[in-house]
């Protein structure tokens, strides 16, 4: 492999452009991409059913980007065949249906772990990347509570 393996990690206030991000992690040897995106739900039924007007995201940006790079490094260690990785979290005021986060992994073939790698990426982002969201709805506003306690070395 002579091409550099591309990795994108970014906290952004701009729209997440899937076409652009995918192109930036596609190599000449790439034949498959697994992409996860999360969106703001306007209507939630699991747990306490409720409506959401918008989410307000904030981040400890320099640490978040460094932890995203760590997530990308963990993916490469677990799935060495992964070629390109993109991890993007959008922050600011985001309304229902808006993509808020993207994890994308590319590889030569689809049976190499790209799906599992993307799934791992979003799970880890939700554990260790310092981003928080406040939910604003018809009944007021409330911080969404995470529940993962990082361990030493994470």
């Amino acid at each position, binding site marked *: 492999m002579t091409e550099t393996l591309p990795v994108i990690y970014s906290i952004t206030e701009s729209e997440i452009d899937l076409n652009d991000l995918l192109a930036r992690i596609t190599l000449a040897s790439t034949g498959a991409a697994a992409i996860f995106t999360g969106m703001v739900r306007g209507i939630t039924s699991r747990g306490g059913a409720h409506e959401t007007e918008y989410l307000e995201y904030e981040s400890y940006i320099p640490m978040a980007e*460094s932890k995203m790079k760590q997530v990308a490094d963990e993916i490469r260690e677990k799935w060495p065949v992964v070629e390109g990785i993109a991890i993007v979290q959008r922050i600011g005021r985001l309304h229902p249906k808006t993509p808020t986060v993207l994890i994308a992994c590319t590889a030569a073939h689809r049976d190499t772990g790209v799906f599992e790698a993307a799934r791992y990426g*979003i799970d880890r982002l*939700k*554990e260790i990347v310092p*981003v*928080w969201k406040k939910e604003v709805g018809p009944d007021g506003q409330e911080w*969404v*509570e995470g*529940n993962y306690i990082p361990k030493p070395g994470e």
Partner: protein
Amino acid sequence: MNKIKILFFATIRDRAGTKSMELDISADMTIAQLKDKLGADHPNLKESMKSVLITINREYAFDEAVVPPNAEIALFPPVSGG
């Protein structure tokens, strides 16, 4: 004395009433002692100190760690991004 900077995020910032502060602390202060001090100096934060996450220079840190000079400390609740 060590000069450090403390950043607050999300619920912890709401309770602290500020995004950041600068502090002079003793040179051998641990994270556990810093939490005690913050809880004592800012009664609003006392309850939060039990479950708060703390970072030193953008890495997760734990009770026994000694706060180094010029550290950038951050306090925040478990993350909820995505």
